[in-house]
């Protein structure tokens, strides 16, 4: 059996609030193999984003362990986590999160700046990823000059530019109409077929249906984990 991209053991996260410690995530054991496409579902406030932030090394757990490609990253320092986010993980957000002052090409190339790539290499790779999401002609445009669906494509290109093994997407279609959503899901399915592991949060069942495996959260607990029966997405 190949090494799991993601393996959590008793993962928990509590937030300190005015009312005291609030457990947003409790004792989650989950393993995701390389090349899987997993949808995470659950009602609002059930801890999905909390879980994704932990998977994405944006936050550290209060308890338990998290193995990313075999390495326990639960207790790493901030800058080590930043390096992991840069090299191993691609993020796609609900709100696209492009930098408005930069051209699309520069947006896509930004992770490479922090990876220490040279300018020419940054340019080439950014253009390649833009072409991969079908936006080769928009390299010089600004985010506010293109549609929401196109912006999300640029965000995906940015997530891909450092060739990560894992893409994490927290409600990537939450701001898009159903037609555009389907297009974006098609793109994710394509990337998954190319071998990239994808973990995607959604509360729309037709979006979740694209994934081969569905995980459900309720009140911070992992309550169900079952295959959708689909071999390939959408």
């Amino acid at each position, binding site marked *: 059996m190949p090494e799991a991209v993601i393996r959590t053991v008793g993962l928990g996260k509590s937030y300190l609030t005015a009312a005291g410690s609030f457990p947003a995530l409790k004792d989650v054991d989950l393993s995701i193999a390389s090349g899987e496409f997993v949808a995470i579902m659950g009602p609002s406030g059930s801890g999905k984003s909390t879980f994704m932030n932990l998977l*994405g090394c944006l936050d550290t757990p209060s308890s338990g362990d998290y193995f990313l490609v075999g390495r326990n990253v639960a207790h790493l320092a901030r800058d080590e986590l*930043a390096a992991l*986010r840069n*090299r191993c993980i691609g993020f796609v957000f609900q709100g696209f*999160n492009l*930098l408005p*002052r930069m051209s699309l090409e520069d947006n896509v190339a930004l992770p490479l*700046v*922090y990876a*220490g790539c040279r300018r020419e290499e940054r340019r080439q790779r950014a253009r390649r990823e833009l072409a991969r999401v079908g936006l080769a002609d928009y390299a010089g445009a600004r985010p506010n000059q293109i549609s929401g669906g196109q912006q999300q494509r640029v965000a995906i290109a940015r997530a891909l530019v450092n060739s990560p093994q894992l893409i994490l997407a927290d409600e990537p279609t939450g701001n898009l109409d159903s037609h555009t959503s389907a297009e974006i899901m098609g793109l994710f399915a394509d990337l998954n077929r190319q071998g990239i592991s994808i973990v995607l949060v959604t509360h729309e069942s037709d979006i979740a249906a694209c994934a081969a495996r569905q995980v459900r959260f309720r009140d911070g607990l992992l309550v169900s984990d079952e295959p959708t029966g689909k071999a390939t997405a959408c």
Partner: protein
Amino acid sequence: MLKAMLGEAWQAMGANRLRSGLTMLGMVIGVGSVVLMLAIGQGAQYSVAQTISTMGSNLYIVISGSTSAGGLRSGSGGGPTLTIGDAEAIAELDGVANVAPVQQGTQQLVHGPNNWSATVVGTTPPYLDARAWTLQSGYPFSDSDVRAATRVALIGQTAADNLFPNEDPLGKTLRIRQSPFVIIGVLARKGQNLDGRDQDDTLLIPLTTAQRKVFGNPFPGSVRMIMVQATSAEAMPAVEASMVALLRQRHRLREGQDNDFYLRNLAAAADSAAETTRVMSLLLGAIASVSLLVGGIGIMNIMLVSVTERTREIGIRMAIGARQRDILAQFLFEALMISVAGCLIGLLIGVGGALLTNALTDMVIVISGTSVLVAFAVAAGIGIFFGYYPAHRAAALDPIEALRHQ
């Protein structure tokens, strides 16, 4: 990486031109005024130093005081208590370079139809060295001129210009109180002294001639003033002490009796003038520095606003792999860029203002490379100092909180 960051800092500055420009203006004014004030201050120091060097260094003037005979005191210099013999004795002391007895006063000089009133100084040859006089042409009078009380004179530039408007005074004759004097030398120009008096409005003649023909001395062998030059500044305290002891002994003053002469230390006066201008230029610089400080605070203020406005951007950058030091560097760079750009413009304006001041007034302006370098270093320092706190705040943001920021 560095180039990418420079480009981004430039872009960030360009994104809000008015704001960056106004922030920069604070630095422009700060650096500009520091450079200008330093230039004026150093100019003043320079011209005072210049003046001091023309007055002769390490000088004492011994002035004859009141004779007290039978409890009767006449005023300062009333009856001269100093003698030529005193001057000769002082010259024998250790650490004394030059001694010149002096009898001086204002006299009317006449040449043909021109007449001009100038300070006439009767003295001996060492006076030239003591007062740092050099000759532009001709030659100085000698000890034998003093002994023989010849009627020769050395003329200063101002007196020469007024008495001999269109001719070379060398070899010409002028009259003082009907006595003809032959001009054997023309003194090189010195300019004003520290009190603002024109040092070139003068005529030097042998002491003996001055006493007999010009001022008339009812007390032969006595003199009102002796100029004493020490060999070095370090030698001055010792020279002063031995000079006082010598004169008291020669004048047969008993213990407890007041000196019958006054001692003026010209070096001390020069030092205090130099000190005054030094303090003045420091003060000017300090006042100007306050505006630099205000400029720095302006940068800090704007950077704090910028960090708050761009919280989400910071979150995004962190999510895609920016380390804390990357964020820190980014905002430090922006602060540095504003302050250094402001500094460059400020330097131009400061130097321009200094040159303009130089052109429009007769103030001496000195722009030294060091002051320019210091202004530049201080501005860069201010950029880093006042940029650090906002940049540190940006770098310390929590990525998730920052991403959630609207």
